[in-house]
Structures are given as C-alpha cells and as structure tokens.
C-alpha cells in the first residue's frame, strides 16, 4: 500500500473509524515506513492535545435561563391550546348563525333540484324544450337565492361578511332594484373603506343602467375617503359621464380636500370636458 493512500487512513485511525482489517493494514505499513511513523506520531500528539483542550464552564445562569424559557414556552403552548378551544366554540357559533343557514339551505336546494332534474332526464319522453325551461327556471331560482343571500349578508356587522355579500353580486347578471339599492346604501354609508371600494367595483358592472350612473354621480359628494373619491373619479372618466363634471367641481371646492385627490379630480374634469 502506498504512503499517500495511507495518510488518509492515519486520520481515520486516530478517529477510530477503521475496521479491524484496515487497522491491521495501517499497522503493518507503519512498521515498514519511517516517514509515516513520524507523521502518525505528530498526528497523534496533535489529536491527543486537542482532546485535552480546556474550555470554561458555562455559568449557572445558562441553566436558570433555560428553565425559565421552558416555563414560558409551556405557558405559551397552554394559552394556544385554550385559544384553539375558543376557536372551536366560535366555529360552532358561526355554524348556527343565519348566513350559514342560508348557505346550507341554498346547497340543499341545489342538491334537491339536481336530483329532480336527474330523475326527469332519465325519462325518454321529456322534450328538449322542457329541459331548457327547467334550466332557465333553475338559473333564475339560483339568481334569486344569490340575491337573497347578498341582501341578508350585506347588513352583517362583520366587514368580511359584507365583502362576501358584495362579491355575490358579480354572479348576479340581472340585479333587481333591491340589490342595486342595497349596494348604494353600502357605497354611501359603510364604515369600511375596503367594503365601499369593492361595492363601487360591483356597481360598475351595472353602469348601463341610467339609475346606477346617476347614483354614482350623487355618491361623489357623499364620499369622504380620498381612495373612494379617486376611484369614483376614475369610474366617471371610464363611463364618460359628463353630468359628473358639476359634481366633481363641487367636490373640488370641498374644504380639506387631499392634494392628490384634487389633482386627480382636476385631471378627470379635463378628460371629461
């Protein structure tokens, strides 16, 4: 065995990482090779010295700190556990709240209708027009249900629920007056800016309706949030609603108007003129 190969083995030998056979090979080589003997002696001296290197004792405070940290961690875990119980109770409460009942009823209705249609379609004598009619009835019922859900959720005290209510309107193609009125009430009165912004976005899908356009123009004077004012100004430009120029000018005169909003409105008036 060559010396180079053996040098690596010398380290393994110090580390006690050699098998019996390998150890024997190294020993045999060492008896024959003076250079390796010397090298191994140096390695061993170094290795032994390393083992004797002394390090200071950690202070007792390390142990005290550890047990303090462990106690704190245990307390935090317990708090988390009780929190999760509360969470479960809240979930149960949520489950019995009206909006969930409505959703459940809605789901059951859909399942029921599905079953009815499924049974009907099994019969050969049903005509295609009947299917069409039934699908239309179903679609209108679904839309009606969505409107009902939207109207019941939009007055919920939770902003998240109100956002969800507004979200439903994206699925309502033909919104009736009640839905539009509810959206405007939210746009003009909701405390939460985010809800108002989402509502504005929802209303923009009905801008083909003259009443909606008029309502949006009127809303310009009601809004106090710079974000909503800017968003409304954008909508006016997008609709090219010239009637809004007057309202925008009135808004410009409003005291304490944000500079950015001011610039935006001036720009919008320019775009509309």
């Amino acid at each position, binding site marked *: 065995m060559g010396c180079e190969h053996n040098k690596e083995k010398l380290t393994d030998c110090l580390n006690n990482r050699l098998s019996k056979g390998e150890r024997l090979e190294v020993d045999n080589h060492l008896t024959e090779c003076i250079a390796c003997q010397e090298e191994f002696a140096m390695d061993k001296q170094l290795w032994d010295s390393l083992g004797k290197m002394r*390090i200071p004792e950690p202070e007792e405070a*390390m142990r005290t700190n550890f047990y303090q940290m*462990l106690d704190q961690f245990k307390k935090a875990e317990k708090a988390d556990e009780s929190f999760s119980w509360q969470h479960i109770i809240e979930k149960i409460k949520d489950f019995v709240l009206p909006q969930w009942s409505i959703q459940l009823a809605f789901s059951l209705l859909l399942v029921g209708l599905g079953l009815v249609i499924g049974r009907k379609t099994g019969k050969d004598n049903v005509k295609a027009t009947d299917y069409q009619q039934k699908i239309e009835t179903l679609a209108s019922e679904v839309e009606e249900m969505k409107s009902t859900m939207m109207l019941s959720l939009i007055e919920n005290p939770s902003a998240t629920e109100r956002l969800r209510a507004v979200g439903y309107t994206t699925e309502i193609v033909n919104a009736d007056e009640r839905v539009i009125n509810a959206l405007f009430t939210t746009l003009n009165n909701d405390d939460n800016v985010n809800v108002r912004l989402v509502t504005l976005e929802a209303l923009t899908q009905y801008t083909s309706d003259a009443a909606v356009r008029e309502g949006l123009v009127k809303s310009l004077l009601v809004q106090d949030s710079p974000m909503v004012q800017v968003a409304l100004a954008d909508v006016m430009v997008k609709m090219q609603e010239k009637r809004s120029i007057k309202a925008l000018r009135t808004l410009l005169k409003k005291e304490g108007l944000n500079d950015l909003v001011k610039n935006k409105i001036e720009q919008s008036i320019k775009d509309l003129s």
Partner: protein
Amino acid sequence: MNALTDNSLMLRVKAGDLDKMGLLFERYNRPLFAFFYHMTHTTHASEDLVQNVFYRMLKYKHTFTGEGEFRTWMYYLARNVLNDSVKQNKTANHYDVNEMADKIGGGTLADEGLEKQQDKDFLHKAMAGLSEEYREVLILSRFQDLKYNEIAKVLNVNEGTVKVRVHRALGELKKKFFTNERR
C-alpha cells in the same frame, strides 16, 4: 434503556411532554456549549446560542421525525443558529487570537510546565487560524465524537466529503501548529 434514549425523549417532547426537554438539556448543554465555544471562543455568546438551540428544538419539535439520530438533528439546528447569529453580527465567526491567548495563558495549572502551556496556546492559535469549514469538522469529530455519516447529515454533504475535510483540516492544523505558529 429504550425509554430514556434521546430520540424517545424528543418524541415525548414532540407529543407535548415539554418537561422532557429538561432531561435533554442536562445531557447536551455542555457538549453544545463546547461546540459553540470552540467556534466562537466567547463564553456569553455561547451560552446564548445554547439557549437558542433549545428554544428552536421546542419551536420546531414537530419537524423531529425520530428516524435519524437526535444528536444529528440538534447539531444541524445548532449550526443554523450559529450561522444566523453570525449573519446578525451578534457573534464573531472567528477567534480573536490575542484575546484568546490572554485568556488561555491565565489558566496555567501548578503542575504544568511553561512549555506545555505554550503548546496549548499554540494549539488554540492554530485552531483559530483554521477556516470555519475545517474547524467545524474537527470539533464535530474530535470533541462531539460524531461519526462521519452523522457529520455528513449535519453539514448536508456526503460522507466522503466529510472524510476528506477532516483529513485536510488535521493536515492544516498540523502545519499551523508545528511550523507557522512557532516562528
């Protein structure tokens, strides 16, 4: 006794019996302190780092599967704690050689000759002069008595790499100890 193996204790901790971490602390606070001390040569920082490792073991107890050795997992976290600490500049990632020589020089025992003490100083200096990569493998294999395959898992490299690294680290240390540092 199986009930008292590191792995079974850690699995109990994972299952919510957090007091068992106390037993693991008693087993490993010294070796961990030694690991950090050899890497940083700062007592207080090493104590803080030990605390951080035990905190991480509690926080990430869910990641312990029990398939590998507890020690491997612990040193893996220890290494991350050290790296994070270095990144935040809280801990020096290398020895301050002069400060260290002063400290070591002060610890002479009555039965130690001056030469023997000097040897120890030279050895500390030689260790300090090693790259972090080399120092790390020497500490893990010599002081923590980890097997090559365990070190490989801690460092996330293959066993062959560890073997070569230990060999080279020892060669480098020898060079520094027997030649450079004595000039």
